[in-house]
């Protein structure tokens, strides 16, 4: 069932300060991703994958999260294109760069995993996994625990359109929507119309992925994920709905994929995709809310920060070889069978 248009229309405009904040975070996230690609191309990393093109969706999501650790806060089950969301939540550039450069200081994985595979327990951000679907079913568990704890907090899960072909996506819809056992879960799909190199028509029969939620009586809607205002308003409305009812909601956000799938497909800018930042900047300029000079300053500021952070990360320690035995078990319990 679609959310009412009436309630959306009441929130047609966002406060100017918020729009400026959203713009700046979108730029910061984009510059960061482009810096990560440059690090890859310079041979200082092995693989890049990320979310340039998803800023107009991801930044509003990050701003609306009730962030913190434990059941009194929202849980996030993200995928590897969610740099904009984490940037909006407060992730510093250096944290993504350390992950990209596999430093021991990488706060997410200690140099153990790919770019975009973030993990921030301090904000209930579950570890991003390379399998593109398991977050959908794992999110059921945190939502279940939240419901049981009686909080008004929610779990949020995001993934791409291609991952909806996996059974875990169906699991998510089934378990979240059982009668009288509904879970407080925001299910999102960022539809960039590509599964690596297979286009949307090559793997989908449905017109809109959001329609699949309807079969489970999950409230659902489609948003233009290239418009940060529409994204923000839709997210806020659906998150408020989940918090007040304890029931799931589903948003399909239609977004761009500006640099292809990953470094595996070249990570080159795709000119015929909509660039959400350029579009938003036009709107802000037309509305007289920002000047070209101010825009230029924001881009330059983060370019300089990215360069400085890469230099800093380059000088930091690499993980030690002997650390492979660390954290196999909790409390670093001995895991090497040779030592049993």
């Amino acid at each position: 069932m679609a959310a009412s248009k009436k309630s959306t229309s009441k929130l047609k405009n966002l406060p100017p300060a918020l729009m400026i904040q959203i713009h700046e975070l979108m730029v910061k996230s984009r510059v960061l991703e482009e810096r990560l690609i440059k690090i890859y191309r310079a041979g200082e990393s092995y693989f890049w994958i990320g979310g340039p093109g998803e800023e107009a969706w991801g930044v509003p999501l990050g701003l609306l999260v009730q962030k913190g650790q434990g059941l009194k806060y929202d849980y996030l089950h993200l995928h590897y294109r969610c740099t904009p969301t984490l940037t909006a939540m407060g992730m510093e550039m250096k944290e993504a760069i350390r992950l990209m450069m596999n430093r021991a200081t990488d706060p997410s994985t200690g140099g153990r995993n790919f770019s975009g595979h973030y993990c921030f327990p301090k904000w209930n951000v579950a570890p991003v996994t390379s399998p593109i679907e398991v977050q959908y079913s794992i999110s059921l568990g945190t939502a279940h625990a939240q419901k049981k704890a009686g909080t008004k907090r929610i779990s949020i899960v995001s993934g791409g359109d291609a991952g909806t072909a996996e059974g875990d996506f169906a699991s998510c819809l089934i378990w979240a929507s059982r009668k009288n056992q509904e879970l407080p879960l925001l299910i999102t799909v960022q539809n960039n119309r590509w599964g690596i190199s297979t286009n949307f028509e090559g793997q989908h029969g449905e017109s809109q992925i959001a329609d699949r939620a309807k079969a489970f009586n999950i409230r659902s809607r489609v948003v233009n994920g290239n418009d940060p205002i529409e994204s923000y308003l839709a997210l806020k409305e659906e998150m408020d709905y989940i918090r007040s009812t304890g029931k799931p909601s589903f948003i399909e956000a239609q977004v761009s994929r500006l640099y292809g799938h990953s470094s595996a497909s070249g990570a080159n800018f795709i000119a015929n995709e909509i660039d959400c930042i350029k579009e938003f900047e036009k709107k802000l300029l037309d509305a007289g809310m920002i000047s070209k000079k101010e825009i230029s300053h924001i881009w330059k500021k983060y370019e300089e920060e990215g360069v400085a952070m890469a230099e800093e990360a380059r000088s930091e320690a690499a993980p030690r070889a002997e650390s492979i035995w660390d954290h196999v078990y909790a409390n670093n319990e001995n895991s090497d069978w040779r030592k049993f």
Partner: protein
Amino acid sequence: MANMAQAIRMALHYAEKNLELKDVFGQDVGAPLGGVFTATQGLKTAWNAPLDERGIISMAMGIAMTGSRCVAEIQFCDYIFNTMDLLKIAGNTLWCTNGQYNLPMVVMTPVGAGIRGSIYHSHSFDSWASRLQGWKVVMPSNPLDAYGLLLSAIKDPNPVLFLKPKALMRVRGEELIPGEPTSEKELKAMIDAPIGDRSKWKPQWPQVKDYEVPIGKGKITRSGERLTLVSYGRHLLLCNEIADELKQENISIEVIDLRSIYPYDWQMVKESVVKTGRVLFVNEDTEVTNFGEHLVYRVVQELFYHLLARPRVIAAKNVPGIGLHPNLEDATVPQKSEIKNTLLEIINEIP
């Protein structure tokens, strides 16, 4: 004495009451059935999951991510294989996050043959499980160990696989669970659901107490001098029987119940093999790339000059399934005669 199903039930009840266990779930785990082997009857927190193994494992992972304790069940281990990448992720989450997210979850699942379950209800999982890095894997051979291992598993901050030898679910133990009434009839009346309408039935739980079998610690069930026989689960009972029979013939066999498959009690195996110079490993998972082969490898690497005979493994035949007819099942999984004959061969081998 309790049987293994009752022991598991009592352990879960103890954990609900004392260890903050908040969710016990899986297919048919909740009322009215309480599990296909009745191991979850009458539990306060037991609930029925959709028929979705991947959903069950990932639900457990999410619950564990919040720090809450849960025990999830896969109804038969034959159906756990479509969750393999989730098990892999559960095992690597702590490592991948550099120690930031541990998953304190227990997954229990019935394993092995012995109930004429044919192709999809007779599989073993111990050798597969031994390759799931980051997991601990245990398999009891008697009700008291089932009770103690399950409580240890629930307390453990890591993911733990609790493998239930399904053929032993109705076998009674020789030792009382702490707090268990001495009368079997009394226990049955207290905690076994009646046949028929159970809507008004509630269990009367005995005052069971804390009891741990530490994960990673084996047990010598028969002391002996001539050969070390290492097993776990259902086949441990066969090994004990063989040792008792041979004792009548003045052949002294040492039997070790490994109890934990990973981490395993190498020091116990090592000391025994050094003493006897001969060793046989027995389990019912398939023979090619068997966990017993790893143990033989280690024996050869570390104890070669203590050996008086070739170490050996008896396991199930490397065929795709276990056929329903007894002739087929018996020809596939290790039988007592095969174990005994091999054991005598090893003893009679002259270095």
